[in-house]
């Protein structure tokens, strides 16, 4: 028990809130596989299943940051593996532009990330989450785009 607490909390006690938009056909199944394979990975992500990474609206990303997410992950099928054949190619272009815009206004680089995780890559999903949480813990809570609501 003591060991679990140690891995879940660092010295500052900051636990990042991560919103993960996972494609229903690959990444969502990949996260399931990580779970059923009993892989240990940080539990900071709120998974939201979307039908395709191509259906990902930039509004979702901006809105998540506005509502206080410390990090946003978009994850879809590898290029060529899309259930809808080319949805992830559209996503790649769109997410690239969103990332450039967020960087330009000065949001920390590490807060927004995209990954390709297939349904068979439970271990990769665990690794992606682990890296993301580690990186965000280093930069601390997201305050720049967060709305100040009572």
């Amino acid at each position, binding site marked *: 028990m003591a060991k679990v607490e140690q891995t879940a909390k660092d010295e500052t006690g900051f636990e990042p809130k991560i919103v993960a938009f996972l494609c229903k056909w690959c990444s969502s199944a990949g996260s399931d596989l990580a779970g059923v394979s009993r892989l240990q990975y940080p539990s900071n992500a709120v998974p939201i299943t979307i039908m395709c990474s191509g259906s990902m609206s*930039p*509004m979702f990303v*901006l*809105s998540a940051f*506005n509502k206080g997410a410390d990090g946003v992950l978009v994850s879809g099928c590898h*290029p060529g593996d899309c259930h809808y054949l*080319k949805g992830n*190619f*559209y996503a*790649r*272009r*769109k997410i*690239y*532009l*969103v*990332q*450039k*815009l*967020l*960087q*330009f*206004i*000065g*949001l*920390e*680089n590490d807060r927004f*990330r*995209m*990954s*390709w995780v297939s349904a068979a890559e439970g271990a990769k999903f665990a690794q*992606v989450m682990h*890296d993301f949480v580690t990186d965000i813990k280093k930069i601390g809570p997201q305050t*720049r*785009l*967060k*709305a*100040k609501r009572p």
Partner: protein
Amino acid sequence: MIDVAQLKAHAKGLLEKGTVRTVFGYRKSTAGLLAEPAGITEAAQADDLIFDPSCVQNLALYLVNDKKHQAEKRSDDKRPVAVVAKGCDSRAITVLLQENHFSRESVHVIGVSCEGTGVVDARKLARKLGNKKALAVAFDGADAFAVTTNEGTQSIAAAEVMAERCLECRSAHPTLSDVVFGEAKAERGLHTPFQAVKAKIKESEEDRWAYWSRQFDRCLRCYACRSVCPMCYCDECVVDSISFVIAPDTTAEEKANRIKWIERSPAKSESAMYHMVRAIHLAGRCIDCAECERVCPVNIPLRLLNTRLEMEAFETFQYNPGSDPELPTLTSSFRDTDPNSFIR
């Protein structure tokens, strides 16, 4: 040099024959230096038309507004509308055609070339003139403006008082037109394109955030940038809950359950979100007419924000908005060679 008499004669001819419903052009304003947009419906009024460096507005906006008005009036007049379009305006029209906002037959584009000099930046001109007040500005040769003030006319090098966007202009000549007046001159190239963006990118993340946070904090959310943008034609705007259409059969529940993506208060976080939503919606559509920046009452450098993604479109995806109405739009197309290394 553009011959305004020919432009007037052409507009007059169109209206006399009745082949167009309205001619959108510029006329001398009664308030200040800059020309005002005019919708001309009578052949006799065609003599009011002007074209000089004070014609800064993007008239593509009036095509969009005209479409809305025609729908509201339930007009069955299917005649095309004519519009006076500079290089940048013609690109805006091309983007609207690309998006099937209206058909090619419904618009008669009267292209005007702003040639070597482009249009004037009223703020730069006021700074240059000091306490003298500019009353009129005219083309003066290939690289100067003749500025008339209360103390007489003087010639000013165009590069000194030209709008920022004109300095970087890559196609001053209309790319899409039914008739063109003025000499074809494609590239002005006084400044390297995207230089302001490139300088900003070199700054540190903290500096950039400090800069933008100051800008967004100032925003009043008057939505002038949205109103003046020919690309912001949606009836319902995601960032503005009062624009949601309420039909007679919209239930109270539907009204209550509409997603409010952002609050309407001009808080920094909400304004940041608003400007970013607008920037991302303009990715690959913004033709750099810089009207948003011109109309901003608090001088937010919106052109800098919008050209960030234009630079990406141009340099990474080799996409130049408004170059070809047949081309798919930036975000509705992809290539196998698109950047992939940023994805883990």
